[in-house]
């Protein structure tokens, strides 16, 4: 089943519905994603876009309503033992007992992993050597997140699933996590990462997928994703009117605007010409109403689960 060309993760037509009948809500509506070995895919999306709902299926915590997930060609349910051995997960919120020390937490974790890395090695990987005898309760948010990563790395995972791994971290901690993730990717691990930070995606991702209203609406390299979005030219004429032009060909449009201004002797204030950025692309997508038969909600998946249970 698994030869070296099999993708680390392959999601096809994934659907996930909460509730049944009238109150049923489809949070994931036919998602296709592929993460190749040695690459990092950043999954972006607004709150309630269905990222976490998708992640939970991939992590094996929830069942899909439709479609398929393959981890190195394996079915995460039927081939659970083998699939789990090769994956590492960092959930959106850390889950630790505050009264255990860092070392005790990792010892416990190591006992649950086939062929674990030595605890000392993993502690060094995430820069927590000086904190091994500290209770988790006393760790800072950043240290706790690095302990999460340490737990996920104990099993030498070939596929890492990181759900917002740097949320709440200070800039320095974020950089350290980035460096660690980049190194793991360079050593051949595949990484599926969700994030709210667009700079994180720009910094780390080989592939970017933007999810909106349960579907993947853009996918590709940073250049490809941004390239599908028009460039903009904006200026204000002396009568105080601001104009924004969208164009596929920034140079030509800008030349036309400047030529027109020169010919008519108009002074343009606040002149701004730019290619689309990941941010403008993302915001344009986030601003699109859901093409949906049920009314749009901002509810996160957690709220939704609560509502239907």
């Amino acid at each position, binding site marked *: 089943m698994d030869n070296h060309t099999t993708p680390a993760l392959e999601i096809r037509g994934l659907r996930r519905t909460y509730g049944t009948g009238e109150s049923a809500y489809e949070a994931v509506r036919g998602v296709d994603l592929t993460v190749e070995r040695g690459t990092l895919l950043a999954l972006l999306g607004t709150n309630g876009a269905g990222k976490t709902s998708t992640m939970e299926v991939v992590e094996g*915590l929830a069942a899909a309503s439709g479609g398929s997930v393959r981890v190195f060609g394996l079915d995460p349910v039927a081939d659970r033992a083998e699939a789990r051995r090769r994956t590492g*997960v960092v959930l959106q*919120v850390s*889950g*630790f007992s505050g009264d255990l020390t860092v070392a*005790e937490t990792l010892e*416990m974790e190591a006992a*649950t992993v086939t062929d674990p890395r030595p605890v000392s090695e993993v502690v060094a990987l995430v820069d927590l050597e000086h904190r091994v005898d500290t209770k988790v309760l006393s760790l800072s948010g950043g240290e706790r997140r690095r302990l999460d990563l340490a737990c996920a790395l104990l099993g030498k995972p070939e596929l890492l699933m990181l759900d917002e791994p740097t949320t709440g971290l200070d800039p320095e901690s974020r950089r350290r996590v980035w460096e660690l993730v980049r190194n793991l990717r360079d050593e051949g691990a595949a990484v599926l990462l969700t994030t709210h930070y667009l700079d994180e995606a720009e910094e780390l991702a080989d592939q970017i997928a933007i999810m909106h209203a349960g579907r993947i609406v853009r996918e590709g390299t940073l250049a490809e994703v941004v390239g599908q979005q028009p460039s903009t030219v904006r200026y204000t004429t002396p009568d105080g009117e601001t104009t924004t032009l969208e164009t596929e060909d920034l140079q030509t449009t800008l030349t036309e605007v400047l030529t027109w201004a020169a010919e008519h002797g108009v002074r343009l204030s606040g002149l701004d010409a730019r290619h689309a950025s990941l941010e403008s692309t993302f915001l344009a997508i986030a601003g699109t109403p859901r093409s949906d038969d049920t009314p749009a909600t901002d509810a996160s998946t957690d709220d939704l689960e609560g509502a239907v249970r």
Partner: protein
Amino acid sequence: MTTMTFSSTSPALRRTTGLTKANGRLMLRNRLNLAYGFVLPLLPLAFLLVGDRGDVGSAGMALVSVIVMAALFPVYYNVLSMTVTRRDELVLKRIRTGETRDLELLTSLALPGVAVAMIVGLGAIPLALALGAPVPVNPVMFVLTVLVSALVFAVLAFWTAAWTKNAEAAQITSMPVILLAVVGQVAISFPEEVRRWIDLTPGAAITDLVRSSWLGLDGPSTDPSLSFGETWAAAGQPLLVLAAWAALAAWLAARSMRWEPRS
């Protein structure tokens, strides 16, 4: 060297042991909980000081109370609060993304409490004898009673955890099971028709098992009449009652267990 030992044991056993060790550590770190687990169940042995040495009535009351409390405090209450707390801490959710199976995770939550109950049950034997209780008729059956009671109440704890919102709510949600556990002891004074139903509670089954195994008492009788051999036969029905409760609780828990905090 450690790796050698690890690879030679079964992965399921290694996972369960590792998790049990952590849960045991956490239990030992909660001093108050620990004192409740060890000391409280042994207090009823003081009843033995009230009656005459060898008095069957006070011995019965004392020993049944010890075992019921051992099933309730170190096992039921402890396993319930550990399960709910680990769930609130999102530890259960995180562990479930790994190789660990649900049954291993639950076993690791139950074992520390079951171990304390066993220590209490075994410790009660010399203590009770020293305080003047008669020599047990069937000590093997008595120890088995402690073990089975502990296991049944661990499963009841998982079922309760399934519909307990958080650790605070456990004070209320534990009431039905506590009632099921203690009603058996007061039943002796109830009319026959009521008692027949109460006999079907886990508390009554434990009462019967303790009284027959240690004191050789047959049902509500106060006259020690059962021989060693007869105590085995007398254990049949109450053991069946306990097994039925365990099966029911396990079925309900499996259907409704929640691994994440309720939102």
